[in-house]
């Protein structure tokens, strides 16, 4: 099965804290609701960016997900407050969650 | 060793300026860059450069 996304580390200022997911198709439609359900403290927001709408979901002091700023791209921004172990765990959790969503959408 | 060799290019010129300020040696900025430097000065400049290049 074609890998639904590629992950790239942003080597700019937030070294290792900003990961970009590039999707073959699109960011999964159910991402926001799934993250809100999976992480108790998570909250969602959005902001207008020209003609685009940027969606944000934040798990406080752990990570933020941002999408809508570019086609088929998801940003995972890890937090300084999280420990290195938590960051590894969160990256893995997001990758698994996104993979599951992509798989479900493909199957649907 | 000359100033030109120790501080090559435009980035080198900026680093030389940093060193001149750190060591309070304005004469470094007026010295000919291709003149040989004495060993003691080279050592001083290299130590200062190592310090300035750190975070």
């Amino acid at each position: 099965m074609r890998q639904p996304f590629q992950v790239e580390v942003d080597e700019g200022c937030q070294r290792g804290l900003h990961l970009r997911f590039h999707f073959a198709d699109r960011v999964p439609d159910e991402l926001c609701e799934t993250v809100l359900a999976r992480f108790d403290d998570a909250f969602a927001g959005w902001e207008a960016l020209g003609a685009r709408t940027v969606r944000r979901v934040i798990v406080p002091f752990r990570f933020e997900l941002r999408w809508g700023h570019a086609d088929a791209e998801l940003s995972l921004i890890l937090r300084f407050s999280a420990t290195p172990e938590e960051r590894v765990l969160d990256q893995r959790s997001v990758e698994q969650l996104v993979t599951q969503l992509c798989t479900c959408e493909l199957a649907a | 060793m000359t100033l030109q060799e120790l501080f090559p290019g435009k980035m080198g010129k900026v680093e030389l300026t940093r060193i001149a300020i750190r060591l309070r040696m304005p004469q470094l900025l007026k010295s000919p860059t291709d003149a040989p430097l004495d060993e003691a000065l080279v050592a001083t400049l290299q130590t200062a450069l190592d310090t300035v290049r750190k975070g």
Partner: protein
Amino acid sequence: MTRALAPAAPRDHGRFLYGGEPLVFHCNFYNYWLQKTLLLDPELQMEEVIQAAASEAAGQMFRRAAAALPGGGTTSDRLALAVDSFAELGFGTVDLSGVSAEGGTVTLPVSHYGQCFRQVVDSDFATPQSLFDAGFVSAAAAFVHGVPRHTFQATIEACASMGAPSGRIRLDATGAALTFDGYAHEAHSAGDPGAPFADTSVDEAAILGALGTLDFSGNEEGLIPRFGVMLTRHFASFYNRVSFEFLRRMDKTGLLDAAEMLLVDTGYRCAFHTFGGIMTSAEWDAVIRPQCKTRADWVHGMVATVNALGWGVWRVSELSEDRVVVRIYDDYESCGQLDMYGRSERPVSHLAAAAVAGTMNLIYAADIHEKPTLDLDFYARAFEQDGLFEPEQTRSMAMGHEYTEIVASR
């Protein structure tokens, strides 16, 4: 997220006041390179200046903010304002609960000057970098407990920039070693900037409108990750005080020209990382890039963006592939000079000069539209090229002119 904040309002010529203090956006790279420059000569004792400048700016803000609180606010109100202001402006997270009127210990789980500086160099610093934090918290603690601003001397006991898991600053009620007394902020330019440059497909008003809808508040850990950098919405007063004090002290060493050159170099770093980050960001791609048909349009797009940063109002009056003339109304550096010291005999807008030349270099020499990785190697390669733009400050508000004018040419 609801925070207890000082009164805030936009003012003319692109200024934005928070508790009466003008704010300007700058990134961790500029903050790092500026501080590195300021601390070059240990005999200048700039560590004290940085702390005192931070205390001055924060103290002025707190004083005006208190005036807006009913009865000057309770201790609890003031504590919330201090902690929330630190986070809102992107400085990090601060815990002042361990401090009383007699002193105590402040902890900083997250600090822009701690963690975000360490990220710039990717290694531990030899000395603590959270000097701004030390000044801020000394003013904050005095404000919270209703004692004179200069009550506390701050000592940095731990700093994330040195690899500590969090920051720790001890406050002793022994009086600050160095103080600055604060000053009023005036708008100095009566000149009318006029409309943006007409011969471009870039719509500045639309860009400012779009940027105005973005959230530039500190996130839940008090940081502002935007455009690929870590922003601070910082005090113009702080930057001006530390920069001008540096120059005044350097003047006595015979190295004033060199000091000014390094402030320009610091500005080049700012242009490279902040402007480069903006021009390679998703926000630029979404809002500004679609309007850009030529390299000249990129310049106008970047100028439009600068006009959202609180740096004054920039207007391009001439532009070609080899030369640009930018007029700046109420550039924050000139305003600070006039407010603090009165008219200057020399131009003082070193950051603005570097930003103008740096913008041109990114667009016309470094091909920023190809989205290069903005690392040190690329900076070095870009900087070593022939045919780079060099700035000249041909008019200066600090010297009494109607506007500041930067000509960058190659």
